[in-house]
């Protein structure tokens, strides 16, 4: 990376930081998921462009929250996919930790293909 580029991006970063401090979370602090933070690869099998994204997630995150966030990132409605880890389809009422997800693991977005 060139020095000029770094200088430019530094200015932008500073602005962003100021913005962030002004945002007040609407989620009550008691409901904020905690636990260990791990990096997980999310890989889609559906959609017009199956792709992979690496995200930092809290191990106590409810699957339903995770699905909602992932649905925004992949542009897929949450009711159209399940999350799957190591062959187990994750229930939205569980938390990530219930499936023994570890740092560096991959979670798949698989279709809810129930039509006959």
């Amino acid at each position, binding site marked *: 990376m060139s020095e000029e580029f770094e200088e430019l991006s530094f200015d932008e970063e500073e602005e962003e930081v100021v913005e962030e401090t002004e945002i007040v979370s609407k989620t009550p602090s008691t409901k904020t998921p905690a636990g260990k933070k791990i990096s997980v690869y999310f890989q889609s099998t*559906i959609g017009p462009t199956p792709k992979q994204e690496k995200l930092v997630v809290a191990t106590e995150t409810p699957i339903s929250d995770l699905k909602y966030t992932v649905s925004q990132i992949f542009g897929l409605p949450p009711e159209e996919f399940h999350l799957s880890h190591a*062959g*187990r389809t994750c229930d939205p009422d569980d938390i990530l930790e219930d499936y023994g997800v570890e740092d560096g693991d991959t979670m798949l977005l698989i279709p809810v293909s129930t039509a006959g």
Partner: protein
Amino acid sequence: MENKSSDKSNFFSEVLSADERIRFDRQLRLPGWNQKALKDSTVLIVGVGGLGTEIAKNLAMAGVGVLHLIDLDIIEHSNLNRQILFYDAEEGEPKSKVAARTLKKINPHSRYFWHYSNLEDVNPEIYAKADLYISGLDSVTARNELMRRAVQFKKPMIDGGTATYYGHVYTYLPNVNSCLQCDPQRERERETLAACTLVGIPRKRSHCLLKGQLFFESKHNRPPDTTEMDEVKIALDYANDLIKEHFPETGLFTIDEAVKMIDQHDPTVISINAVIASLQTQEALKLLHHLKGIELGVVNPEYLIYNGLVGKFFYLEKPPNKKCLLCGDNAPIIEEIELPRSSTLDMLYPILKQRGYHFDPEFLPSFWLVDKKEMSEAKRNNTLVEAGIRDFETIYVTGLTKNNEEKDVYVRILLKNTK
């Protein structure tokens, strides 16, 4: 084992008629193929819709000897974009019946049994004696019901499903990979949306339209006819009043949205259907060879996903879950008990005692008829016939202990003919 030379020959197999030998000529030439194995097989196809008709057509053309076709539905013209077996049917005819009729025309050498009912009403003996089950179902509940039978009778079950341009194929192999209960899914599917979630204030925008629909049903004792604009309007107006009250920030429902939500059908097309159905068929043909002790390729034990938008396949390993309550280490034991049909259920107590189970005489164990569509408790003074217990019926027994541990047990009744 007999070892006649005609057993190993496809062309000179004694089970094939001259007509069949000509009909199947091209496949008789396939390496490793055994037509007799297929002719001697019985396959159960549950759900005779998009996938089921296509699979039934394939298996009939390949010469599988006996097909049981189970479906509780009737034919609608909207089935004709993908369900070839119904091309000449009248609207309203039972799907399973018409499928059997058309299959007989396609290949008259096999036998087709149709069951115009839900899968629970089909005699348990048929599940006990089929070689394998194929699911072309569109309901998660029904898939679970079929899977329980597959696990308990130790039968392979080839499941398929589609969603828009995607689909999956998964072959459950007893003691090899996971059953459907291995995934702890508590989430309710849409079709079983409990009425209680709709009582009171609607929590979701979609609930407003469901309430509109229920409003119509409460007035007319039937759902609105989605081909009648006036009827849809009644449900729609009710729904939009609720939207204005509870979700004013979101837009009102349009009449087309109302039609699609009242008359809920998944979008599907023949191409995706045919891909999934063909994959299910191919796994079935290999398995039928294996079940007769004949080597022919290997069955894919993985969960296969097809993405028709990009033309790609994905595979997931599905290891069995040791904690699974249906197939895991702690799954209830199955006790087979053979009794004449005139026996009372009460007689099961001493038999279970004989087999090392204990119970509190003050609180006698209960017998649950889990194979029925509506699960109920059987009266212990009833005879097996009076309780509606069929051959190979499974009964769930609660309240037993063995080695001081509480044990839930499945009892499989085999009806004994003493004459």
